């Protein structure tokens, strides 16, 4: 039987509304789907659709109110599976007093990467992401784009089987975006799973195998990009925004 990289079964999440006692916000409503190993999976949806919440549930950052979630074929309670997961946060804040190298050493140790492997891997990653010349500089002096590149390096550090990217294009310039696409393709080539959350539909469409669309916490679409783009009336291909319009309004 195929072990899914991630599996959500009837997952719901209800938050208490901040500063409004008794009021709740339902971020996820009985979401069920699975992500196969080796695929690039995109999670789309309008703002406040529950995309980031779903990622957080998968990473154990957020506790589901109900339902079951498995990560790399194991229940969420098995924290050791996180050693095989890389996560890039949508708005990452790194301690400004650390240098890129020290930061990656710190995260590498927490991800159980042996020291003998860690140092050459850090050097290679910084080189790949164009940060080698600033490796010893405090992060406080980094631009937004450089911080994003560093966040990507951090996510790739453990050579993860499951790479989770939340709005990875944010703050990246054109060369950074191209590099990101290259890295995602490379991950797929190596048989690794990539889960991308993004609102930059066009760029995600170019790299993903399948996608899910969340609207108001519900799974509104699940399938391949090709079937989403197929116009039911003409049988031809329609633009992604046109295809998503009726789903977002549903």
């Amino acid at each position, binding site marked *: 039987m195929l072990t899914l990289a991630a599996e959500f079964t009837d997952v719901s999440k209800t*938050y208490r509304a901040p500063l409004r006692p008794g009021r709740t916000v339902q971020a996820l409503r009985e979401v069920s789907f699975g992500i196969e190993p080796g695929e690039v999976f995109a999670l789309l949806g309008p703002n406040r659709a529950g995309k980031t919440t779903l990622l957080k549930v998968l990473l154990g950052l957020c506790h589901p109110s109900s339902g079951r979630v498995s990560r790399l074929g194991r229940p969420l309670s098995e924290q050791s599976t996180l050693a095989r997961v890389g996560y*890039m946060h949508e708005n990452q804040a790194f*301690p400004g007093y*650390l240098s890129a190298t020290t930061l990656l050493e710190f995260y590498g140790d*927490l991800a159980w990467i042996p020291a003998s492997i860690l140092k050459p891997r850090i050097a290679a990653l910084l080189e790949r992401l164009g940060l080698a010349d600033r490796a010893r500089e405090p992060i406080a002096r980094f631009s937004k784009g450089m911080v994003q590149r560093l966040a990507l390096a951090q996510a790739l550090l453990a050579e993860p089987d499951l790479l989770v990217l939340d709005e990875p294009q944010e703050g990246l310039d054109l060369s950074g975006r191209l590099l990101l696409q290259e890295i995602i393709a490379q991950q797929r080539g190596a048989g690794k799973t990539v889960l991308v959350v993004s609102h930059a539909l066009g760029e995600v469409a170019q790299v993903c195998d399948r996608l899910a669309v969340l609207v108001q916490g519900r799974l509104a679409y699940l399938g391949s990009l090709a079937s989403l783009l197929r116009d039911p009336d003409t049988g031809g291909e329609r633009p992604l925004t046109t295809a998503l319009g009726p789903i977002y309004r549903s």
Partner: protein
Amino acid sequence: MNTRRTFATLEQLIRDTFRQAWASGISGMMLGVTAICVVLCLSVSVSSDVVLHRSDEPALFLPPPSPPAVAPSVVLVLGSSGLLQTLTLTTASQTAWCSLENKPDLARREGIETITGQMTLAFGAVSFPMARERGDSVRFLELLLSGGIAGSLGLLLALVWTAGFLPTFLEASAASVLLAKPVGRWQLLVGKYIGVLTFVGFQVVLFVVLTWLALGLRTNVWDMTYWWCIPLLLLQFAVLYSFSVLLAVATRSTVACVFGSLLFWLLSWGINYGSVMARGLEEPQPLPSFTVALTQAAYWISPKPIDAGLILFNALDAQQHFEKPGVFKLLESGNTFSPQLSLLSSLVIAGVLLALSAYELNAKDY
């Protein structure tokens, strides 16, 4: 997670705390305070002091706790001067001392060698007549450094300065990636707590050892009891900081941690003081049993800065040289005060607060 990984995580968190402290300037400020105190100690000089007792005699010269405690030679000299004739031994020795202290010529005529020594601070800018021998003066300075500077001002500053460490660490945009690592949340929290304790412990050790060395070099008094203040101060900080940890987890706000910790410190003082006073009131005017139970309950579940002060006072053997403050006497009255229980209950409080923090962090959504 095996032990090696746990220690590797702990090591990283400790190193990170030191880097954070250095980058935020807190390390520099603490080192600055230590440097000022070391310079102050290096500026001390003692001259013309007299050894008043042999090493096997109690350090107390006058007044004596009991007649045999007074150095025999001193009693003999005072007796022969004629000043003790109409007074009892204890009060006479005090009176005689006061009279002679201000009239060294008269004393000398009576055959009594009065102390004419001086202790100077700030490289001779400020001078004090020495009340007793140099060991006492050094002990006074050590009490001032450990109780007054490190134990009160230093402790407060350390609490305020380190209050921002955890909220920054737990901020959603910084912590999300950390919490997505294969390390338990409680391990990260306890690791950071130990990191801060290690940092503060390092600063305390530096402060005590350097001031001890400076005083020793200038006065040749090498009093090891001063080192007791290292574990005692660290324990006090550990208890107070555990509350700051709870606030950091609950609010992730530096401001809440700063003001909350200060409030908690003041409240602890109030509760500790109130319970001591309640104990003192028991004799002449017994308090209602409910009030007594309430103050006792509050006493056991809160940090005890006055107890800590007394333990420090006793650990430094200060009662040999100085009058014990009234609140300490009251605390020890009735023989119900147990330093071990006091310290143990403080440790339990720190443990409970940390456990609550870990539970809260574990339940939190990021």
